[in-house]
């Protein structure tokens, strides 16, 4: 398997860019998809955001300086794209945060690519009530199984703060699921 350093070099070289991009998409598409999907919830939206993310990566790879890992950089782009997508939609529709969450839950229930049972739906409702940062940290730690060091690099937050956010999020979610 090609090293990250070589992959970046190939992506930044015109002659090898296409082949390297194919390798990049193949390597990271699923991880980025699931990360995005857990933010936007609905498959069609996740597909749009994922494609935008890869297009953005392709267009800006020339400016990538390698100060962080390629994976972290892409995750950051994906996170920003997903959050911007939600914010734009909310603004366009003129919804408050609560209304927007309710709409998202309704969309999730209508999504044919959500096969969750009552507990899984309840979990999504519970996650929706978390503050943005806690939501992201919980998904990245619990589902994406990223290390605190990786999350720290992506979200540019200290490991200590991330640990606190994660434990708070877990407590809240467990309490929500137990009481309802």
């Amino acid at each position: 398997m090609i090293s990250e350093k070589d992959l970046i070099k190939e992506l930044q070289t015109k002659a090898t860019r296409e082949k390297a991009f194919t390798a990049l998409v193949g390597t990271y598409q699923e991880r980025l998809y699931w990360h995005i999907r857990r933010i936007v919830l609905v498959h069609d939206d996740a597909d749009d955001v994922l494609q935008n993310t890869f297009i953005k990566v392709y267009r800006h790879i020339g400016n990538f300086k390698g100060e962080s890992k390629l994976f972290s950089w892409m995750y950051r782009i994906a996170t920003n794209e997903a959050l911007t997508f939600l914010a734009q939609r909310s603004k366009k529709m003129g919804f408050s945060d609560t209304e927007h969450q309710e709409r998202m839950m309704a969309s999730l229930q209508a999504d044919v690519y959500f096969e969750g049972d009552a507990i899984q739906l309840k979990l999504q409702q519970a996650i929706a009530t978390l503050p943005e940062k806690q939501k992201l940290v919980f998904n990245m730690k619990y589902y994406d199984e990223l290390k605190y060091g990786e999350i720290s690099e992506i979200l540019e937050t200290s490991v200590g703060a991330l640990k606190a956010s994660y434990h708070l999020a877990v407590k809240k979610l467990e309490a929500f699921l137990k009481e309802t």
Partner: protein
Amino acid sequence: MKQKSTQQPFNTPEGYFENFGERLKGKLAQPKSVIPKNSGFTVPQGYFEELLGQLDERRRPKAKVIPLHPYKKHIWIAASVAVLVLLAVGLGRELQPSITFEDLAHEDIEAYLENNDLGLSSYEIAEFLPLEDVPAHLNLSEEQMLEYLTNHVDHINELNLENDD
């Protein structure tokens, strides 16, 4: 049979160490949290296989369409002219001083009131008249009153006299 420690006077239940590993595994296997690990999301079949193709489609530069009639150039010219005209009209209006009530001549006001039916009765008009200049008692002689009534009242009914008899 109870196992005895050779060094300490403590005992353990029979077979404690034999099944310790099994019990530990059982404990570890128990779910730690009520939060389900499977979030219930799925993707369409073959989605990830087709993603690269869709991305290629989006990255491909679109063929440039050359219009047969490049009307856009004319639209810009027309729009520019329209903006200039609107600006000129707007500025012209801005430069004209606005007319205030004081600028109206009394004759104009009187002519307007005479020529336009305002739908106001005499009593309603009277309400707007200033009372400061009206003397409390008019010292009119009987002859003056009769002369005024003769000259100004055409119909006796207009006086609204109450006839008790």
